[in-house]
Structures are given as C-alpha cells and as structure tokens.
C-alpha cells in the first residue's frame, strides 16, 4: 500500500467519531440525491405511462388537401387566395393499403383504423355532447384498454352497441340495456343500446367519449369507405418520432407521434429535472462545505504532526496527498453508504406505493442516480479537501513544532 494512503487511512481511523459523523453527513446528502432522482425518474415514467396508456403512439391522417397554384402570366402581378374548408370531412380512402404497410413494419404492437366525429347522446329531453369513436370490435382495446375497465355490461361492440363512460352514464341516468339516440354532427341519428359502461379514471374518456361499431360510425358521419385515422401502438413508445417519420414516408399520410403532441409534458419534465439538478447541486455543496470544514479543523489539530513530517523531510506533495486522500475516502465511503441506503429507502417507499394501490410517491428505485452520485460525491470529497490540503502544506514546520 502506498505510504501516503496508509497515513491518510490511519488518520481517518484514529478520529473514529469525526469520521463516522462525516460519513453520515455525506451519506445523507447522497440519500437525498438518490431519493430525488428515483422520485423524478419514477414520476417521469408514471406520467408518460399515464399519458400514453389511452392514446396512440403514432397517428396516421390524411394530409391537408390544399389547392394547387396554376401559373398565370409571369409578367402580370398575381395575387393568390387559398381557401380551406371543413365542408368535406378529412378521410383516408386508401386505409387498407396503409394498414398493410403498417402491418409489415416491425416494432408495431397494435394498429387500428378509426372513424371519429362529434355528436350528442339524447335521452328524452336530456342531451350530452360526446366524441364518437367508431372502432372495429376486435380492436376495441388496441389503443385504449376499455374491456378491462368495464364496470357494467360488456365490451361487446355490435352494430347497435354503445359503450359509454361512467360519468356520462350518471349524467344522463343511463343503465346497461337502455336505448339512446346518438346524433352526429352530420345530422344523422341512430338509436343504439348501452351495452357497457366503463371507468378509466380519465375525465375525458369517462365523460365525453362513446364507442360504436365502425360500420355504425360510417353511417353517422357519412364515410362509406374511408376512415378518419389509423392509430398505432409501438413496442417502444420512445421511438415514436422515428416511427412517425418512417410510416409517414412509407404511406404518404401525415404521421404524428405522441411526443410531438404532448410537448408540454416534456417541458414539465424538463423543469422537474432542472429542479432535481438544483437540489443535487445544493446537496453536493453542503457535502463539500461539511467535509472541507472538518478537514480544516484536522489540519489545525495536527499542525505539530504536519510540522514534524516536514522536518523529517516529507514533501509538501506528501502532505497534500494525505489530506486529498482523506477527502476522497470520506466522499467515496459516504457515497457508497448513501447509495446503498438510498436504494433501500427508495425500494421500500416504491414497494409501499405499489402495495397501497399506487397512492404513494411514484418512486422507482432503478431510476436513482447511483453511479453518478458516487462519482460526483467522490469528486466533491476531493475538491473539498483542496483547501485543507493547501493549508496543511503551507504550515511552517518551526511554528508548528514550537506551538
């Protein structure tokens, strides 16, 4: 063992109480870092899962149809006016070929054609606006898992079926088996039967969404052939942008990823990450100040010994090394202790949250910054020891010996 390491180690061991307090202080700082990173990481996963659970990862739509400019007399001054109209409903006519392309693409978990539009559910004098989703019965759960969330009736989607959320059912006093009228924004009406009532916990789905058979939707929204969009779930939701670009190019349709539609979530997550960084910074600063002040006290307490070492012809570099190594040992030891304790705490709290039905903090122990925490804390220990090491190296041997 290098002699400088032996001396530094012996100094730490000889002041057991101080060393234990220092290690505890560093460990608590690292626990805070691990805890905050596990919490922010868990929160990110939770938010993304909550956001993407009921929405498509990639949506294929008909591109905007714009009128083409016809070139006029190049010498004349020309004014173009481009009008957009909503009279014609946007639809994908070649949706079957697009579905075939999607089906041949690897990494697709599910894909479903969809017809959607606005409408009203009427019961007697009562009326409620809804977003109508026309789905193929076997693909009801492809994008949003409705079947597992049925609380009354069944998830059977036949031509007369209407599936509604529990809030909408309460608002209109509807029960399974009751007939209701569904009127589309095209003025078409169909009498349907409430086959199932679901509870997703999401206000938009439970209060304003109604599921019907895709063929029923065709008649309600005047779309005899096309579909409104193709919704896709991916095996890797983080690759949505890449898949959107690829599928858009392959199908000629407008492809949008969930990431580009939910930029505000990432903005919020970025802000959280920045907050986490600030907390980590202050935790490290506290560690550095604590270690530096304790080691500075050590240099004063060991002034005579340092003076003797200098008198024996030990170099300033050796003295600096003794104190820097003490900082490294404290940083590394405290970091290892803190990382292990932080992992245990995060695991316990994460487990507790799961056992309480997800009502606790969304901590994910695997998201904790363990390696980063250990490396940065060790570096902080080293940096914290710079000032005491410098002070120790500058001690005048004669002053120290004669004190």
């Amino acid at each position: 063992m290098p002699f400088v390491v032996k001396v530094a180690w012996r100094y730490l061991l000889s002041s057991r109480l101080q060393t234990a307090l220092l290690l505890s202080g560093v460990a608590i700082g690292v626990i805070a870092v691990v805890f905050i990173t596990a919490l922010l990481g868990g929160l990110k996963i939770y938010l993304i899962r909550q956001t993407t659970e009921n929405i498509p990862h990639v949506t294929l739509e008909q591109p905007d149809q714009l009128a083409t400019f016809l070139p006029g007399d190049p010498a004349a001054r020309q004014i173009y006016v481009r009008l957009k109209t909503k009279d014609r409903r946007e639809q994908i006519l070649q949706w079957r070929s697009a579905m075939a392309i999607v089906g041949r693409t690897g990494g697709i978990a599910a894909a479903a054609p969809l017809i959607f539009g606005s409408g009203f559910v009427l019961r007697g004098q009562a009326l409620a606006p809804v977003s109508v989703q026309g789905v193929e019965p076997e693909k009801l759960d492809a994008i949003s898992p409705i079947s597992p969330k049925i609380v009354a009736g069944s998830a059977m989607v036949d031509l007369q079926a209407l599936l509604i959320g529990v809030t909408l059912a309460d608002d209109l006093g509807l029960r399974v088996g009751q007939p209701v009228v569904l009127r589309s924004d095209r003025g078409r009406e169909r009498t349907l039967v409430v086959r199932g009532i679901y509870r997703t916990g999401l206000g938009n789905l439970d209060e304003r969404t109604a599921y019907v058979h895709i063929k029923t939707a065709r008649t309600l929204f005047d779309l005899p052939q096309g579909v409104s969009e193709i919704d896709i779930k991916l095996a890797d939701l983080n690759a949505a942008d890449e898949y959107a670009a690829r599928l858009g190019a392959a199908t000629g349709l407008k492809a949008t990823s969930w990431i580009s539609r939910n930029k505000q979530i990432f903005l919020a997550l970025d802000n959280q990450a920045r907050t986490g960084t600030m907390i980590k910074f202050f935790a490290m600063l506290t560690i550095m100040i604590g270690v530096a002040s304790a080691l500075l006290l050590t240099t004063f307490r060991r002034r005579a010994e340092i003076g003797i070492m200098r008198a024996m012809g030990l170099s300033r570099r050796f003295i600096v090394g003794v104190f820097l190594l003490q900082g490294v040992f404290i940083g590394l030891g405290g970091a290892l202790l803190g990382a292990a304790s932080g992992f245990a705490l995060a695991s316990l709290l994460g487990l507790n949250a799961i056992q309480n039905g997800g009502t606790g903090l969304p901590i994910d122990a695997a998201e904790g910054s363990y390696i980063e925490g250990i490396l940065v804390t060790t570096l902080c220990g080293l940096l914290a020891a710079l000032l005491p090491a410098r002070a120790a190296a500058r001690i005048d041997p004669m002053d120290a010996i004669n004190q």
Partner: protein
Amino acid sequence: MIIASPLVRIRDLVKTFGEGETATRVLKGVDLDLQAAEFVALLGPSGSGKSTLMSIIGTLMRPTSGELSMLGRSLIGMAEDELTEFRNSYLGFVFQAHHLLPDFTAEENVCFPAAGRAGFERAADRARAASLLERVGLADRRAYRATQLSGGQKQRVALARALMNKPQLVLADEPTGNLDRESSDQVLHLLREMNKELRTTFLITTHDEGVAAFCDRRIHILDGKVAETAGAAP
C-alpha cells in the same frame, strides 16, 4: 598538510525577524564549523539565539544573510523542494517534546522518514527500524503506539527515528529537558554511543551543564553571537 573540510560551515550568519522599527536581530554574525562525528553542545540563555541557529542549520528556517554550507553544498540558495530532500537525506531531529506521531506504532514512527521518501514501507526499512529500536532497547515496544510509551521510551524512539535515514548530522533540541535523571542519563549515553558507532555528528542544545560536560565541544551563544568555544574538535 590536508585540512578536512568541515561538515557544516557557517559564516557571518544573520537572522532578523520583522522589519523597520520592530525588526529584531536574533543572530548577529555567527561563525561556526562542525566537524564530522563531533558531539557538540550548544549552550546559551533563553533568547540568546541558539534555537534560531538550530532551525537554520536544520534548514527549517532561512537566514537573513550569511553563508551556510553542509557537505560542501551551499544551502542558502536552495529551492524548498531541494531543502526538503536534503533534510530527509542528511539531517535528523530530536525534539524536547519527542513529537512522535501518536496514531502510529513505534516501528512505524521510526520508518516514517524512509517510507515518506520511498513512497512505501519497504521490508528493508522495516528491518532497519526494528534493528534501531533494538539498539535503543525497545525491541519489545515495536508495536506500541506512542501514547503507550513512557517519556524516556518516547525519546529513544525519537532518536531511532532521527537515525533512520543514516543522517550526517542530528540536531537535538533539549533532548533530555523533559526527562527524569535516570531516563536523561540513558538517552544521553545512547546519543553518545550512536555518535561513536555511526560517526554521526550531534549538535545538542541544552541549559544543563551536566549534559554539556558530556560533549566533546561546548559552544556558548550569547546575544546572537558565538561567545566562547570550549573543548576541541576530534
């Protein structure tokens, strides 16, 4: 006739502390030679400048002016790192308050100068440390911490440590000042034996005429100057 050059040569050495009106001249032109294998006492009342002279010879303090050379090398213009290395190689110190490192064993304390230079505790150094401890009568105290030793034992460990790197000159500052008569005699005899065995020069500061009488030569410092030299160099 061949005249051997002295181990230490000091000429017109001046040391002033402070500046301007508050300046205090502690050494006022000291001339002194120390020969190889000499056993010399440095005497003088408190404030006479003997501790300052010891510190300057020990390269722990720089003089204001004058000449100081050892083994033919001038120490005046030497860089700090060079002086540190020089101290480690050619000088040994024994202090009145022993100044052992309390967290290390007797053997580790003795090994310190060699291990600090080599970067490791080599087996050969440990063996030499053990042999020195045996020589000073502390073979059975090798593994004892400094705090577990008596005053006389501590001073004997300090002597072994001072001799670890086979120095040319050992500077002993009141080495028996804190010891009882019996321990004092033991240490003094040990210093003398080492001087004869190893032919190491010893410069011992003391107030004790009994200690001084034990030395080959006695140098009296008075008011910053060498006032009197008694005895002769070997």
